[in-house]
């Protein structure tokens, strides 16, 4: 065997980008199960169709850019984008809505910037925001949770997706919508008058959030990302919610627990904020990045025009990430600090 010449290091750890992406996909499974349990097969159909579109878009872009297809498709990053966007979309979305969202995410937000690693904005959130601004009606049509209406079956879900004109589903305001629209009821009354509310937050929503928290904790255990950004986000969101809770008046912004277990809080904290490509890089940077996202989520939820805010908050902070990086460079060994005496 001819001796090859390579530079050090010659040993390599077991981690690969492909494995990182596969772990993220795996970690979404508990959340998807809970969503399916409470809202029916809509999310699953979303994901199935979205994955097909995502791979097709990725392949198209790679072909146009003359990149090897197999090598780049194998990294699973397109699938991650598809999963994350489709989880965020309302179940029973029509096929074109999903296609437009995925195409925006993969082609505009990712490949136009140079593909994986070069995108300044989180592709899934960019796709989501494009849809939210373009098709607000479809994007706010959430199905009622289990127990509050007739549960559509798998066939209904497929019909909703692929021949939406024939599908006649019911939709219902989400707990975050209700809180936003409320201006006369005390929190307790609001809770009693609307069946969507569960033990801590919305029915279904609270469990979905807990499931995503579990998936995130598993990723953390796998050392796929560090705790800094998600914990900072959850902490700042809780802190603001606690400060402005005011005991539950009609002007209250909702309790910390409500915010932690509503909407896309946990999903955002562990699957979106942790996106390494678009977040700050240093430990301090990630703490700041996460904390500011948490604050923005609260502000937009309570004061903004949209009921949920994770996508907007993340995109805004994507802008700020390079700026944060610039000011949070860690202190290198031998540069001040511990010189001389310990």
């Amino acid at each position, binding site marked *: 065997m001819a001796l090859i*010449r*390579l530079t050090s*290091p*010659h040993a390599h*750890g077991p981690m690969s980008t492909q494995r990182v992406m596969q772990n993220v996909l795996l970690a979404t499974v508990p959340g998807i199960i809970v969503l399916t349990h409470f809202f029916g097969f809509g999310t699953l159909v979303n994901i199935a169709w979205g994955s097909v579109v995502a791979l097709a878009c990725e392949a198209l872009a790679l072909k146009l850019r003359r990149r090897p297809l197999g090598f780049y498709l194998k990294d699973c990053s397109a699938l991650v984008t598809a999963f994350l966007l489709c989880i965020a979309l309302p179940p029973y979305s029509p096929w074109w809505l999903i296609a437009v969202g995925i195409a925006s995410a993969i082609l505009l937000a990712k490949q136009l910037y140079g*593909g*994986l*690693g070069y995108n300044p904005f989180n592709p899934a959130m960019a796709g989501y925001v494009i849809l939210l601004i373009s098709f607000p009606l479809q994007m706010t049509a959430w199905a009622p949770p289990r127990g509050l209406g007739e549960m559509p079956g798998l066939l209904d879900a497929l019909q909703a997706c692929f021949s939406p004109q024939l599908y006649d589903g019911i939709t219902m305001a989400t707990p975050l919508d209700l809180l936003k629209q409320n201006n006369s009821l005390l929190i307790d009354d609001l809770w009693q008058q609307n069946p969507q509310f569960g033990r801590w937050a919305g029915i279904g929503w609270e469990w979905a959030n807990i499931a995503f928290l579990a998936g995130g904790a598993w990723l953390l255990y796998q050392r796929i990302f560090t705790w800094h950004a998600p914990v900072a986000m959850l902490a700042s969101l809780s802190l603001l919610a606690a400060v402005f809770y005011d005991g539950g008046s009609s002007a209250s912004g909702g309790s910390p627990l409500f915010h932690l277990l509503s909407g896309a809080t946990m999903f955002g904290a562990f699957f979106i904020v942790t996106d390494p490509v678009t977040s700050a890089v240093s430990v301090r940077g990630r703490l700041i990045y996460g904390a500011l996202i948490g604050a923005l989520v609260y502000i937009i939820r309570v004061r903004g025009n949209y009921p949920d805010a994770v996508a907007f908050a993340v995109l805004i902070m994507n802008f700020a990430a390079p700026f944060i990086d610039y000011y949070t460079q860690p202190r290198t060994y031998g*540069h001040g600090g511990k*010189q001389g005496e310990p």
Partner: protein
Amino acid sequence: MRKTFGFHGGIHPPENKRQSVRTPIAEAGIPPELIIPLAQHIGAPASAVVTVGERVLKGQMIADARGFVSVPVHAPTSGVIHAIEDRLIAHPSGHLAPCIVIATDGKDEWLPHSGTPDYEALDTADLINVIRNAGIAGMGGAGFPSAVKLSLKPDMHIATLIINGTECEPYITADDILMRERADHIIAGAKILRHIITPDETLIGVEDNKPESIAALLAAAQDSGIEIVVFPTKYPSGGEKQLIEILTGKQVPSGGLPSQVGVICQNVGTAVAIYEAVVQGRPLISRVTTVTGNSLREPQNFQVLIGTPMSYLLERAGYQAEKNNRLIMGGPMMGFTVPDAGVPIVKTTNCLLAPTESELPTPPPAQACIRCGLCAEACPVSLLPQQMFWFAQGKEFDKLEHHNLFDCIECGACSYVCPSHIPLVQYYRASKAEILQLRRDHEKAEQSRIRFEARQQRLEQAEAEKEAKRAARKLAAEQRAQAASTEGAQDPIEAAIERAKAKKASQQGGVSAESELDKLEKAVVTTRKRLDTATTKLEEARAQGSDLVEALQAGVEKTRSKLAEAEQALHNYLASQNAVSAERPPQDAAQAAIEKAMAARALDAALSPTEKARADLAKLQQRLQKSQDSLARSRTNGDEAKIIEALESTVARLTEKISVAQQQLNTAEHA
């Protein structure tokens, strides 16, 4: 138990150390040919002191150190110098380098040598010299001449001497087995080092994955005052800076040396070499090298002669060349591949790694960086490798330096953890090389620029001097013409004297003239100069409205009177001499010039009073015209009131003088 400190980052790669410590250190034996590079250390290469065909004995110096940061090289066994030529050596760039090739004779015949067991009687400087002459350079891998490290400035106090027994690189067990088998030599070497640098404490740092070594060292170090410090295994704890932080909590300043924080670090292998050199009188001619990897049937540690070809050593360990994909000198993290198995073992070769493809697979093509940050978590010096990678790709060198590229120790932890298999360290190495090259180029360009500017300046200065001389000559001529016609002026004489003096100096080359005259002349010239300076200063002070005007005015008056005195003295002297000189022919140019000037004055005196008065008047009118011109200029320029006032008074004075001269002329005409 001593408190140890942590350091940022680090990784835990598979250790793979077990396979090579199953058997004790084996003698590698004497190969038929030894190839001994002249540069086995950091610093200037040694220069050969033997000739081809010469027979050398074991331990004989065959190449001498050249410069301070350099060490000599010795013959590892007896034999004949076969060649002194460029050979392929173990170097990352795979280049040829000068080597001494010895055809061994198998007799292993020693040069008579003796050690100094009672080294404590030796002077520190002598002891360091012994270490230097034994050719000892750091044996942990970098190969820094040990004597240089030990040569401390007299005012430098070392608090901690650290003997590095960490050996954090996977696969390598050379230090481990040395500690197991020769702990007493290590302790003895440490004692010598302690004697040289007199630290407050002497520590031996060992990772906790070497329990046998720790036990051996503890036994050997009993009652020696040397402390064995054990700390958790983590790569790269054995890096000098990391080990210092672990044991002392101090960080070596960026770009600085450990001695700046009162620490000196030496490898255990170096300690043994120092012991052998000092106590036994043996120079560094062999070392312990780990030969390991799955393509070897019997991975083990060898006591190997410096210069032994790697192929010889591999054969001894049961090399299966067909299984081997690359040959690495050093460990899997920081070692480099060698181009050929024929390259020799050198003083810094702690390991020879011959892995199979499945053991250390060829890395797959790099994927995109997803900025996951695992590299930043692993970096032992707290860099941001992912950012540096980005900048290195874009060749943004200023940003790389701002991100402290040059603090990177190239440990490879970032590349190891990178999920996208990006060869990060390679990027940093290349960028460092490029930046250094740019710096050198810049320095060169800067020097050329300075040289060019200096030349330009020289030319300009020469031109300016020429111009000034021309102007001075012109001015002097004008003054002469002016002075020649001014009444009672001593200037023509003065000018003539000066002119003549210069001429004389050039003609006679400083032959002594009348010393009295010289002295007087000098007095006049220097006083005049002083007056000039004082006047300029006074004018400046006036222009600035300074408080010193009065004082300066007094000074000017005083100098002026002194000048008058000096001139008078000179005049008197010349007058007294004149009588004598009239009778004899002029002796030199000065004399001649003086006489010429005197003659001019006589001529002047010979003019009729009317003509003289008329000439004076014309001169005064000219001066008035000039003064009026400059006054007008000052007014239009809006100069300071003081200057204008001064000019006005000049004009008034001249007008007055003209009227006097007019009167004189009138009287002269009427007379």
